[in-house]
């Protein structure tokens, strides 16, 4: 997001949504809300941006069924709630909004998921970001360690200079939920690449083994499916510092999805893929070949794993031949392996053998 919108701009954008409903009632029609279709069938590659974005398929949510009508009513309550926050200069978490909705009577949310989805719906139709709406995510951002320096504006409004190697403890630098320019500035670095890591155990292993210094990299803990701010800061570092990003995940179908959301854009947030996705990111491992090549301890694929892999085969983001090969190979092996299964060969195997070999293939070591 190049810049945030002013409260007035945000309100105007939201009013357009409200007007669509109001005007339909005045015309004697059921009120509606028009949204792009948010499934893998409606994402396409945007050549200019290098990421996957929603296509042209629209769905009209109209109030002819009780479920849709309730959604419209909820959207109105959310709009009203956001306006109140904008006026009062406050913000709330998505979870707080979910609880506040208890007071909305018929417009109350049935689950946290519903309120999250509706917030995204509003982002999509208004082309605002949830930061514009003063809505914060629940999940905290990632942790980072490495010789890189940035400036963060703290809650007193003062800028603090932080080096993510020298000014932090073993848990690293905690990425805040808002990583936009008014909050974070990237200052300087002395690293060659950024490595994003799926599990906390592996992240800590690399730190303990001093991998960041030995291989001149920044380490980033993704915490499973990465939060928006994690993906956003990766994107900024990659672009502003022109650094390669490599992604080190478990070897299973869900890791493939994590990678796709990092590199190509997530289906759920395809409206803002250009702000979140890092098209230059590379999948380091664990690949399906690694399971064989390193003879890693593995588990059989579950029914759900197989379903996920099959779904990925028809996902446009995995359409290239390398991914098709990996997915098919995993299906054939009927095996998956965790990052930490590398410990089979000792605690240092990952830093002394596996990663150097994999990075060498990419020309990074």
């Amino acid at each position, binding site marked *: 997001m190049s810049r945030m919108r002013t409260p007035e701009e945000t309100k105007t954008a939201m*009013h357009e949504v*409200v*007007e669509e*409903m*109001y005007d*339909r*009632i*005045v*015309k*004697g*029609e*059921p*009120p509606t809300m028009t949204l792009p279709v948010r499934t893998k069938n409606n994402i396409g590659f945007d050549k200019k941006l290098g990421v996957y974005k929603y296509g042209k398929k629209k769905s009209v949510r109209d*109030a*002819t*069924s*009780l479920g849709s*009508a*309730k959604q*419209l*009513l909820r959207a*109105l*309550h959310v*709009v*009203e709630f956001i*306006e109140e926050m904008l006026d009062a200069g406050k913000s709330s978490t998505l979870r707080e909004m979910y609880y506040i909705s208890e007071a909305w*009577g*018929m*417009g109350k949310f049935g689950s946290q998921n519903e309120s999250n989805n509706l917030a995204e719906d509003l982002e999509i139709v208004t082309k605002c970001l949830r930061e514009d709406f003063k809505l914060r995510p629940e999940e905290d951002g990632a942790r980072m360690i490495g010789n890189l320096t940035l400036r963060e504006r703290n809650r007193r409004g003062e800028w603090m200079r932080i080096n993510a190697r020298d000014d932090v403890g073993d848990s690293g630098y905690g990425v805040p939920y808002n990583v936009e320019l008014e909050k974070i500035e990237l200052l300087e670095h002395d690293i060659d690449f950024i490595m994003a890591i799926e599990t906390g155990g592996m992240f800590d292993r690399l730190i303990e083994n001093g991998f960041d210094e030995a291989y001149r990299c920044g380490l980033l803990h993704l915490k499973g499916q990465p939060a928006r701010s994690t993906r956003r800061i990766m994107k900024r570092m990659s672009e502003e510092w022109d650094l390669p990003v490599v992604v080190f995940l478990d070897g299973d179908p869900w890791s493939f999805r994590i990678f796709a959301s990092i590199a190509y854009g997530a289906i759920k947030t395809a409206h803002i893929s250009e702000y979140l996705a890092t098209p230059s990111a590379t999948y380091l491992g664990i690949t399906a070949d690694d399971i064989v090549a390193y003879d890693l301890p593995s588990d059989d694929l579950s029914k759900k794993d197989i379903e996920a892999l099959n779904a990925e085969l028809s996902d446009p983001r995995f359409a290239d031949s390398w991914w098709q090969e990996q997915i098919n190979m995993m299906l054939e092996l009927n095996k998956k392996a965790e990052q930490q299964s590398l410990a089979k060969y000792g605690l240092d195997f990952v830093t002394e053998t596996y990663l150097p070999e994999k990075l060498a293939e990419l020309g990074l070591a």
Partner: protein
Amino acid sequence: MSGIAQKLASNQKQVAISEFFEKNKHFLGFDSLARSLITAVKEAVDNALDACEEARILPTIKIQITKLDTKKDIIRLVVEDNGPGIPQKSIEKVFGQLLFGSRFHAIRQSRGQQGIGITGVVMYCQLTTGRTTHVRSKIATEPTAAYVDIGLDTRKNKATKANAGREIWYHEDGTGKEHGTEITAEMKAKYQKGRQSVWQYLRMTSIVNPHAEITFVDPEGETHHWTRVTERLPTKVESIKPHPHGIELGQLQRMVAESKDLNLNHFLLNNFSGVTNRARKELCQAAELEGTRKMKTIKGDDVRALLEAFQGERHFNALPVKLLKPPTNCLSPIEEMLIKKGLSKTIDSRFATTLTRVPSVTQGNPFQVEVGLIFGGTMASDKPVEILRFANRVPLMYQQGGCLLTKAIESVDWRQYGLEQAGGKGVPKGPAAILVHLASTNVQFTSEAKEALADNAEVMEEARKAMLEMGRGLRKHLEKKKKMAKTKEKFELINDILPAIAEKSAQILERPIPELSGSITKIMSAVISESTTEWNKETKQTDVEIVLFNYTSRVRAYTILATWPEKSGATMENNETGGRKEALGVWAWKLDSLQPGEKTTISYSLGGLERGDWTDTEILFRGSQDVIGATKMDEKFLQEIRRQEQIMDENGATTPQETKNEEAAEPPEKKAESVEEKIEPTVAPPEGQRTLFGGDV
């Protein structure tokens, strides 16, 4: 009945009763220790229900079973009723006299058609424990109750009595008992639980006897109670004479031999139903017998010739002799409403539908099929449905698979009605119970055990038709439930959500709240009916209200139809919208112009019903646009109602009329006239309770 009676009659002279009993215990119902107990309970309870019914008393029956000796399986059974009681001198006859009554002249529906009778229980006790059966009985006109121990002298094949006396009979609360009978029997038997148990027998009995109050104290001391749900006693049934189509050779021979009629003409007119004067003449001609023949002269070949004429094998004018159908007022169906009440009180469910078909005739025997189906509630949805079979209000608990009634259920493809059924055949699965009751003057069983009904095309056809109609009812109910849920949602949408959307959007935009009617019409785009059927405590009537909303943009016209329990004697009250009767139990109102956005209300009350008799009104419609909450009128359904109605009218009214017409058309004939003058039954239908050994009381 006559089968066993004859067998006993012929055997009795040659073998000791104990030997006979031993040989035939499988069909007397005493073939296992568990079944013996059920049979004993059954005989005692059937007697109690029959006696109460005859005396027009609402039965209150208490059954208590105690284990006396667990090792030797000795059980004490006490059955107490509030029936009219038995005069002292008759007690012996009822419980032990070894006499054979001639029963076959009186034909009517009766529980006692099954089993061996209470004497069998006395005999079983005597044979298994050597103990006598204690009987206590009081009639209303005497101040004290008579008691006696009845036993059996197996050598002399004679009943014995001992310790006879009189006493004041007190209830537990110290008040005196007015009338009733109590038997205490001690026998070798086993108490079991499950589908073939005393409990199940009593539960089933209570379903088909909703007028009875039944209390059961089981051997563990637990009390099971089935309450009375109606004050209405079963209709009193009339005895009818046998119909020529249903007569067998042996029976005809006996009737001829025992006849005190003047001649064949009298015999035919006096002793058979369905034989008009014209038929009498034609039968004689077909059998080539002179009507004036004395009965004594009618022997072997004559009887056979007569039977052939009866059965249409000998013709008159090249055609079988046409006979009237037997009257059907000898049947006592339970009636739809009472079955529903009986089922609903016994089994927890969401939906109950019942159906009583009009009586029909097979081989000269009137019969009537009744069915009931309950669905939902706490019944298991992954098990076969429970099948409840009854013949003349008596539960059938054994040989389910071989029974005609089960086959009728299995022959229906229940999948189309919302139950699971592998391959559309066999007993369906689902949270349901299906009841089938056959009321008939002559129930045909597959064997002497009398637990399964024998195949009969006509009965099968009636039972199947009843099932299909009931199945349609279930399907409609399930569809309606789905639609109602949808309708409820739509109402919530237009009544709550849409106004909230309008208000909130207007408030955010700071504009006036828009008018909603246009949106409502577009959203609903339907005509909707809502109906309520509620018992009104003050007026003691059932109030019905039907509301019709037109949520379309055009004027609509409909005929709205509602079902109501006309057959059960309900009356239509305060029906200000008027309308007209469409068919039996279906009322219709014509609504010519239902304006867009408008609603119309039809309301009326139903009189002559008890609380809980009528709780759900089915709404139907005729018209082009669908009505949510109502079913489109299936004209076939109406035709079937009208057909049944017609049959009912014929049964009720036309029999005497037809006879009259025939006689008027006939040229006067001297002999016939003289015969007519003297018509008087010579073989009086026996009344009262009867047992295997004790004739009429």
